[in-house]
């Protein structure tokens, strides 16, 4: 397979989109900060005070050694420690599907942040559907690169699933962006019907009502 189509100019497109949504001067918490790519991007491009939580100690240590503010922590367990509206933005990029209790996590995100930005791979993309339909096997794609028996993604969902989950949670979807297979912005509206079939990744900006 060639280079990850969801990466452009050496960076993940969803991260660049997330960074562009953040007002300079904000206080930002990146939940599941991984190797610190978004934190580095934010440090380099936005005047923000940003921190990360990362579950892997290796990722944390590497991040801190690069001068990032990162703590070891688990989105499922440790978000309860953070103060209500302690941050302007709380970001959960490509991590929701790996959490044990996604709805609880989303509740915590909108509690801690004035805004929450959540991105995840859309499990209802037509290629994913086609893979199951024609091969009868769990899909392995650029956004879902793991075999079923080794994937950390235990709660995969579609865009529709996510929107349905947020109903009745007392949150407002302020913005929705869909990315196509090549990481290009394909749709941005608040009724993501067609996106559920065509989008490879989804990005939501939420706030608590």
């Amino acid at each position, binding site marked *: 397979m060639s280079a990850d189509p969801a990466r452009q100019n050496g960076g993940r497109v969803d991260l660049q989109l997330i960074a562009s949504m953040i007002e300079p001067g904000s206080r930002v918490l990146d939940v599941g900060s991984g190797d610190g790519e978004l934190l580095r991007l934010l440090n380099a491009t936005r005047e923000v005070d940003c921190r990360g939580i990362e579950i892997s100690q290796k990722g944390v*240590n590497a991040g801190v*050694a690069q*001068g990032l*503010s990162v703590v070891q922590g688990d989105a499922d367990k440790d978000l309860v420690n*953070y103060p209500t509206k302690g941050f302007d933005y709380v970001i959960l990029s490509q991590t929701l599907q790996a959490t044990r209790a996604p709805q609880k996590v989303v509740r915590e995100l909108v509690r801690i942040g004035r805004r929450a930005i959540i991105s995840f791979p859309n499990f209802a993309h037509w290629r994913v559907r086609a893979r199951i339909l024609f091969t009868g096997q769990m899909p392995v794609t650029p956004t879902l690169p793991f075999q079923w028996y080794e994937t950390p993604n235990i709660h995969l969902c579609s865009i529709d699933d996510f929107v349905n989950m947020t109903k009745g949670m007392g949150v407002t979807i302020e913005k929705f962006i869909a990315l196509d297979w090549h990481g290009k912005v394909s749709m941005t509206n608040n009724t993501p019907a067609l996106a559920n079939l065509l989008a490879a990744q989804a990005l939501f900006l939420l706030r608590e009502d």
Partner: protein
Amino acid sequence: MALDPGKDDGGIALGQAESRYAPVMRFGADAPLLLDCGVNLAPLDIAYQTYGTLNAQRSNAILICHALTLDQYVTGIHPLTGRTGWWNIMVGPGKPLDTDRYFIICANVIGGCIGSTGPTSINPATGRPYGLSFPVITIGDMVNAQAKLVEALGIEQLFCVIGGSMGGMQVLQWAYDYPEKVFSAVPIATAALHSAQNIAFHEVGRQAIMADPDWRGGDYLNQDTRPEKGLAVARMAAHITYLSEAALHEKFGRNLQDREKIGFGFDADFQVESYLRHQGSTFVERFDANSYLYLTRAMDYFDLAAESGGVLAEAFRGAKTRFCVISFTSDWLFPTSESREIVQALNAAAANVSFVEIESQKGHDAFLLDEPELFATLRGFLNAAADKRGLKHVG
């Protein structure tokens, strides 16, 4: 005006005292230190060492807070032991605490025995060593004394306060008592309170000292004896807590000392016994037994959240200091769980915090040893903090 170490400026309230551990900053009777126990301590000597150069903005000072039995000689040659300083691997040109970039300060804690006022100092009321008439001190008192020194050195804000173990307690206390004076803080292998188990270990050590007939109710300096046996046992017990089961096993196993088979007696049959005896006997050459009582007591009394109704997050509310909390996997004296409590409290206060747990078999003492990940963490954290502070890069 920079104070020239070793130069006596002639003042009574503030000046340099003569000592083999010079420079020593002296605060006279008109500048006493009010201790937590209510006593005004004066005169107050603070023996300290500095490394590197304070920049014109006075913004590059790092205060190192030393652990229980260590002292201000972090690098260079120790005047008492003749050995290299205890953090020589960490402090120096090009090292993580880079003396080409930072101005490093380390002061002997009050209650200590390497030049700062403590139980071996002369009690002005009697003209004889304090012994047990020395007031009981706290971690907060140590920090207040250091704050007087830092102020006397003309430094408004420390770029960083860093330390491990009891030094880490001081780091936390600094961030609590003087948040505006601490730009960044690195508490290593420490806790926000001293646990019951750790108090218990300290009590064993103190009882060993006090059970030694040569302790003489703490008056040994006036009676020309030294409770060396008791102090050595205290050190042996404590030293075990600084290591780990795995480290002891790897280093000694059940290996015998200078013999083919067990001796059916109570000599040091095993290497680990011989090692501990050596640790005990070298320790008594450089440390005072009463100091050991006072400093362990100060650690026992440490509970940072006590003034905040036991809620540690309250202690850190509004903190602007950048924190880097570090623990080691095999440290059972100050386990990672206790660092995690600090981190959780800092998170609850939405403070800027990094937290690294380092994989190591070396136990509590890992912070003193060659741990590449510790070095990488400190370099990364300090570089980023220095950029935020506007400190220039070297070279």
